[in-house]
């Protein structure tokens, strides 16, 4: 019945949705923000440990939401580790483009870690589901807010 939904719900997404990595509030973190998607009730907290050099040493999240928002948050925390704030923001820019624009419309976000880009590509299916873009980008908006010290953010 749902064969053509496999582009959106790839195995990796189902797996991360069901068994999110880096889930739970860590003992130590120095940045956090809370994100909310009022439309569907997705709510997440992102916790970052950022070193003096501006490198994300650790990233965690908790909260609840749909499979897309949970998988996206889980994949994000995996890709963020070891990135500088600037690289994290560049990935956010790329990810946002990937979810909302055709390839030729993507803007240049500076250097992108190719491994991270490949990993995040499993979520490119949301491009065909405009109503679900906010689910996929919620974690990233929240990460961005955490870096900039805004405690609350929403995708509205």
């Amino acid at each position, binding site marked *: *019945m749902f064969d053509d*939904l496999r582009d959106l719900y790839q195995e990796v997404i189902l797996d991360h949705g*069901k068994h999110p990595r880096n889930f739970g509030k860590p003992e130590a973190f120095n940045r956090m923000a809370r994100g909310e998607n009022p439309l*569907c009730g*997705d709510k997440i907290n992102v916790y970052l440990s950022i070193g003096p050099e501006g490198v994300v040493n650790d990233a965690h999240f908790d909260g609840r939401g749909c*499979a897309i*928002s*949970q998988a996206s948050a889980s994949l994000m925390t995996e890709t963020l580790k070891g990135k500088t704030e600037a690289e994290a923001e560049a990935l956010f820019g790329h990810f946002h483009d990937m979810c909302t624009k055709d390839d030729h419309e993507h803007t240049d976000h500076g250097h992108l870690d190719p491994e991270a880009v490949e990993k995040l590509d499993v979520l490119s299916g949301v491009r065909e589901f405009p109503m679900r873009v906010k689910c996929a980008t919620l974690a990233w908006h929240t990460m961005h807010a955490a870096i900039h010290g805004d405690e609350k953010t929403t995708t509205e």
Partner: protein
Amino acid sequence: MDTRILTNAPYDVEKVRQDFPILTRLVHEKPGRPGKPLVYLDNAASAQKPRAVIDAMANFMAHDYSNVHRGVHYLSQVATNLYEATRVKTATFLNAPSPDTIVFTRSATEAFNLVASSWGGAHLKAGDEIILSVMEHHANIVPWQLLRSRTGIVIKVAPVLDDGTLDLEALARLLESPKVKLVSITHGSNVLGTVTPAAEIARMAHAAGAKVLFDGSQAAVHMPVDVQAIDADFYIMTGHKLYGPTGFGVLYGKAELLESMPPYQGGGDMIQTVTFEETTFREVPHRFEAGTPPIVEGIGFGAAIDYVTALSMGAIHAHEQRLLAYATEKLQAIDGLRIIGTSPTKAAILSFTIEGVHPHDIGTLVDRAGVAVRVGRHCAEPLMDRFGVGATARASFALYNTEAEADALVDAVRAVREFFN
């Protein structure tokens, strides 16, 4: 009209469906992929429109259109008569004592804001209490909060039992306070489906010296309503859920209450005379209808009332209750599915969750099968908290839905469970 005779006629849903042009369309059509028949189960958000409503609006614009209440010319009189006829139809629909007790607004939301601002602003002072219930739509919460920040009123909340029935004992306790001036409560929950015992609530409120307002946005769509029998002081409806157009709402108010209320908005149409020193206002209900009203929408709403009245609200209710029972039984049989809202008195609304699958994902999946449901918080966030869920999926039935469509929902939901297993 004698509805009893019509109620005895068998309800021919297939014939009824032919009145709704949209129901024959397919969704998710793509080159090389056949579309799916639309199974529209998002009626609590907004209902589809019968040909009679579409035609009435188009014909009115093509033949009879003009502004109302303003001109001496021929068409102005024609348009005014047609528009005011909707007031008479609405009064009959709700069994209101007179068309003058019917105020037209642009939505249920505007009607709530009108009552809160005008009646509340004039009659409530700091420390006065109003009682809402935990299952209210945000439209019956936020206007009161705005009034609270202006005047210092106190908002109390009546709880529901675990099955979603209004907790009448708790309501009685809240009504023991002599400060309660208003009970503003839903007549039918848009999430749980719960239909509240309006007559009893009104009796309790009145015995405590409080007025009562019912949110009939959902209830009036699913069953006959008699505002005099339930002794409502105010009753609110919204047109687009009753198969009418968007942009049209109704506020019924007892005559003496409406008389006691100052205007809500100022402008043309609602005045008697205007000078820069002083303005006198028109009589009720026109006092509350500032500016050019939603004329075309009013014509469409009148046609919608004619349409459901011809089918009879009793027959519609009976048809939907059969569907509700059928769909409830089938859904309940699905492992891990939890129905939120199982009150013995319910309208045909089914909110549910599935263990391990977020409602947002349910929505996207069943949509691919052509089944339109709503997922999320349904503008009732406090209620989501009450039941410990972040969101639900909601299937809501209308007069044109069928058992086959309930089956399509159930099949799609079963497939969702398999997909996520």
